[in-house]
Structures are given as structure tokens and as C-alpha cells.
């Protein structure tokens, strides 16, 4: 009886101490997380994009906008159409971020292709570097996120992003960007944009998963990242990316 009372006090004390530092129930009772629970350390997320496969339909833009309630006029992902004529500066357009796709191209004597864009979730991200309060950060599983409850809205990160992926959300007055659908991928789902791509041009990949097709993709294809000279270590890889793309 004495021993069990002591145990009771011990557990009670432990609960109090751990609860006071915000511990989870699992930590308090000492239980292991479920075997299929998401472990950040086991993942390193990124995306592969096959330029040849993108048809510029804008499904990804619409899906992202709906899934993440992206405010009108701002984009977590968008698609650009490049029209490249020999010896001339490329003509690029992205009407409403390609929310409604693209008008048909009338010329056939030029090179043209679509380039889906999103946050590159850089491993050496300049946006993370410049945030004065650490509100934007690289998660242990390789996703660049913004804590909307901590962001000041100073927009230094917007200036520092070489890819134009960030904006100030007028609804929250904090900086917003692609989260790689973090709420989905941590539940074992793919991103909204990848799920809705009719041609499989964009695929979520996990570099830490040895069985992920990304390894074969990188081995067998000529791939490129955007603005490699920025040395930001982007994790969005493009297959057959033209040199004119910025």
C-alpha cells in the first residue's frame, strides 16, 4: 500500500512537472509514439518537375489556391510559359499565375514550354537567414515554413527570396508561402498541386526514403535547379530545364 502510494505521488509529480513544461501525454506516460506516426527526422522533402510533361492547364494553381486558401492575386505556386525565339529575349507570361491556364499559342516557329514554380524549400535558404526573429525556419524534414503567430510582417524575407515565392498575406498581415502542403504530407498524403496534376509533371519526393523514385530520376535524367549560382541549395529539381528560365 505504501509503495503504491509512493508510486502515485511519483506519477502525480511527474505529470505536474512535465505538464508545466508543456509535455505531451505520450511523454508523460512514457509511451512510445505509434509505429506509423510521422517522424520528421525520417524525411527530407522536395519536388521533381518534368518540364516536358507540364501542359500548362493550371490545375496545380487552382488546387493549391483552394487547399491553402491563398488570397486572390497571390500565389504559392504558379506556372510560367516561356516562348523562346532564337537570338531574342524570351517572352514569358503567367496570366493570373496560370489560374485559368493559358490562351493557345498561335506561333509554331518558336520554342515554347511551361515552367511550374513554387518555393524551392532551399536547404541554405536566404529567407530563413534574414528573418529577424526566426519566424521563418527550415523544419527538420526540409520544409521552409513561416510561423504566422510570430512573423512581424517586416518582409525582409520577401526581398531575400531570389525566386519571388513569398508575399504578405493581406488577411493575416504576415508573410505567406508554399508549405509543401505540410498538413497533408505529414499525414502521408501528397501535395494538392501534385495530386491534381493530370500528367504527373510534378511529384513530391522524399530524399531520405531509399525507395523513393527520386533517386532513379536524378540518376537517369539531366536535371537542374533554378538559379544555381545563388547557392541556396534548392530542393525542387527540374528535368529538361531550358537555360533561358529565370
Amino acid at each position, binding site marked *: 500500500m505504501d509503495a503504491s502510494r509512493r508510486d502515485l505521488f511519483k506519477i502525480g509529480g511527474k505529470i505536474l512537472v512535465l505538464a508545466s513544461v508543456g509535455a505531451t501525454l505520450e511523454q508523460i506516460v512514457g509511451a512510445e509514439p505509434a509505429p506509423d506516426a510521422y517522424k520528421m527526422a525520417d524525411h527530407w522533402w522536395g519536388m521533381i518537375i518534368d518540364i516536358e510533361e507540364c501542359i500548362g492547364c493550371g490545375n496545380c494553381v487552382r488546387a493549391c489556391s483552394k487547399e491553402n486558401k491563398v488570397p486572390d492575386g*497571390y*500565389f504559392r505556386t*504558379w506556372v*510560367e510559359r516561356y516562348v523562346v525565339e532564337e537570338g531574342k*529575349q*524570351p*517572352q*514569358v*507570361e*503567367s496570366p*493570373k*499565375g496560370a489560374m485559368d491556364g493559358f490562351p493557345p499559342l498561335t506561333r509554331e516557329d518558336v520554342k515554347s514550354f511551361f515552367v511550374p*514554380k513554387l518555393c524551392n524549400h532551399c536547404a541554405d535558404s*536566404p529567407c*530563413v*537567414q*534574414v*528573418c*529577424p*526573429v*526566426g*519566424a521563418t525556419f527550415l523544419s527538420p524534414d526540409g520544409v521552409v515554413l513561416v510561423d504566422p503567430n*510570430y*512573423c*512581424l*510582417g*517586416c*518582409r*525582409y524575407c*520577401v*526581398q*531575400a*527570396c*531570389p*525566386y*519571388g*515565392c*513569398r*508575399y*504578405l498575406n493581406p488577411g*493575416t*498581415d*504576415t*508573410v505567406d508561402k508554399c508549405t509543401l502542403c505540410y498538413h497533408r504530407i505529414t499525414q502521408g498524403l501528397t501535395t494538392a498541386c501534385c495530386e491534381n496534376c493530370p500528367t504527373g509533371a510534378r511529384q513530391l519526393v522524399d530524399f531520405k526514403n531509399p525507395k523513393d523514385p527520386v533517386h532513379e530520376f536524378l540518376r537517369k535524367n539531366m536535371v537542374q535547379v533554378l538559379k544555381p549560382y*545563388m547557392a541556396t541549395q534548392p530542393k525542387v529539381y527540374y528535368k529538361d530545364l531550358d537555360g533561358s528560365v*529565370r
Partner: protein
Amino acid sequence: MIAGVDGFMYPNEVELQWSLLIVLYPYITGLVAGAFILASLERVFKVEAVKPTYRLALLTALAFLLVAPLPLQLHLGHPERSYEMYTTPHGSSAMAMFGFVYLWYLTVVLLLEIWLEFRADIVRMSRTTKGLQRLMYRALTLGSQNVSPAARRIDDQVGYIVTVIGIPSAFLLHGYVGFIFGSIKANPWWSSPLMPIVFLFSAMVSGIAAVLLLYVGSMKIRKTIIDMRCLDTIAKYLFYVFVVDFSLEMLDLIHRTYEADESFRSLNFMVHTKLWGSHVLLQICMGTLAPLAILAATQLWRFSAARRRMLYVVACSLTEVGIFAMRWNVVIGGQLFSKSFLGYTTYKVAFAAKEGLLPSLALMLLPFLIFVVLVKVLPPWTADGSAYKTHA
């Protein structure tokens, strides 16, 4: 086709993120740093001729420093969270140190130096005034009533040390503002190791010119004689610093033009179109070459005192326009072109909006109001208009 956009901008780039308020920020901090460095000329480098402006320069620096964080604060999406810069500064962010640099400069350098400089006057006024004024001055003494020659000597010695510390601090304050822009590798218009040093020299130029204008204006209002030896000396220093500043800016321009990296075509086009008025005409021609020519003329030829005064006022006024244009061109110019180098956007200043012209004008007037109050509370001159001889 998006209104105001030429060519292609990434969709999130169309709207400028840093507005007129962020133009004010480097402009105001520049005035602070420049005014302080002018004050230190007299204190540390023993340039006696500028003594009439010593106290004036300190008060000018304080008036502007008190306002310096306001444009930033107003610009934030969540100003109520700005305390996070102090509680959880992010070590790798160039911006994170602003709060600390600012506090250091305000409290350790400027307030301390002003208090030491004015302490004897504060004590005197705490004894000679009545009512609320007396209470205020008593509070300002901070309980230190001893104004014996020995105590004043200590004030002077500590004040000297504070000024010596203050010079690198002033360099830090504004060089640091330049670094905030210069360290952004994504933006070729900003990214330059010369940026901090260009900002620093332009700060000195704007601060010295501002003190000269405030000195002439104050003397005119007080109807007292302007010390021409002082004015000539300030103008001479302004000329020298301006030559260095202009050389640095031209070096940057020549380097960019000669190197002509992938951003050059885009930036060059911007300078010749959207920035032509503010960069070439306002900043370079009207705000730099014209005042430099005027100041050079006053160094080369003899003019009457009245003519020199007029020339100095014109040169300094043009200088202020030029330096403001420089800040504008850096901040706004750096956001008018796409990081794809394929297009340009437009910036239209709103009027009564949160980051519009009206709050900006109010923020630019505020330091002058503070200056007037400071001059009333802590008079920088004696009854006959001459400078106080408070320190050796």
C-alpha cells in the same frame, strides 16, 4: 497584361513590399549619424570653428533618432510583435541587430553625451525656474547637483570618451543600415559590399548639410549673427565628404557597367526609364553635381559673406534632395525590376494610406517639432547667440 507592369514579373513581385516609409528609415538614420559625426569634429578632432553647431548637432541627432524607428514600426504587419527583435533576435539576420544598435546609440551614446554636455545648465535651470519647469529640470538632473569645476572636468572627460565611442557607433548605425540592403544577394541593385560605406558617407553628407541648414535657420529666426567662420568650415568638410561619397557611388556605377553581369541590361534599362527622373536628374545632376559645383566654387573663388551664405544654403538644400533621392532609388528602385530580369513594375505612392504620403510627411515633420522642443528645453546657445564654452 497587368496594369503598371512592363514585361514579365513573378506574380508575387508586382506589388512593392517596401514603401516610402522604408525610404524614410535610411534617410533619417543617415541624418542622425551625419549630425553626430559633425558634432564629434569639434569634440574629438578639435575643429574649434564648428563649435557654434556642436550642441545643435547633438540635438538634431537626437530629434531624428527618436523618430528613426517609427517608419519601421508603422510599416510592420504586426507592430505589436516588434519586441520579439529584442527577446528572440535571430542571430543570422542582418536586421535583427537593429534594435540593439539603435538602443546602444540612443542611450549609451547620444543621451549620455547630451546629458553630460547640458548637465550644468540643467542644474542651473533647476534652481532658477519655477513650477513644472523646475520639476522637469530637477528630474533631468537625475539627482546629480554637483557642478563644481572638478565635477565638470569629470563630465568633460566622460563626454570625450562617449564621443570617441560614439564615432564608431555612428559608423555602425548607418553602415549597418547599408548592410541590410547590401547583403541581399537576390537583389543585384542592392547586393554590393560598397553599400555600407556608400550609405555611411551619404549619411555624413546629409547630416552635415542638415545641421548647416538648421544652424542658419535658427540664427535667422533668432535674428542673431551667423558665424561665417563656422559656416565656411562646415561647408569645407561637407565638400570633402561629398567628394568621397560621389567617388564611391561612381565607383559602384562604373564597376557595374564595366562588369555588366546578367542583371546589367535590366538595371540599365530601369535607370534609363523608370528611374531616370529620380536617379539621373534628381540624385546625380541636381542633388550631387550641382551642390558639388557650388561647394567647389566657394572653395575656389572669393564671395561676399552674404553670397556665401546663400550658396551654402542652396547647396545644402540640393544635397538633402539628392540624398533623399538616393534613398528612394535604392529602396524603391530595388523593387521595380523583376528578379527574372524580364520586366518592371510601377510604384505609386498612396496619399492617406498607412504607408502613404501623409504619414510619411508627418514622420518627416516630427523630428523638427521634437527639435524645437529640445531647443526650448536645452538651449544650445547663450542669450547673445554664441556657443556655450562648456568643455575644453
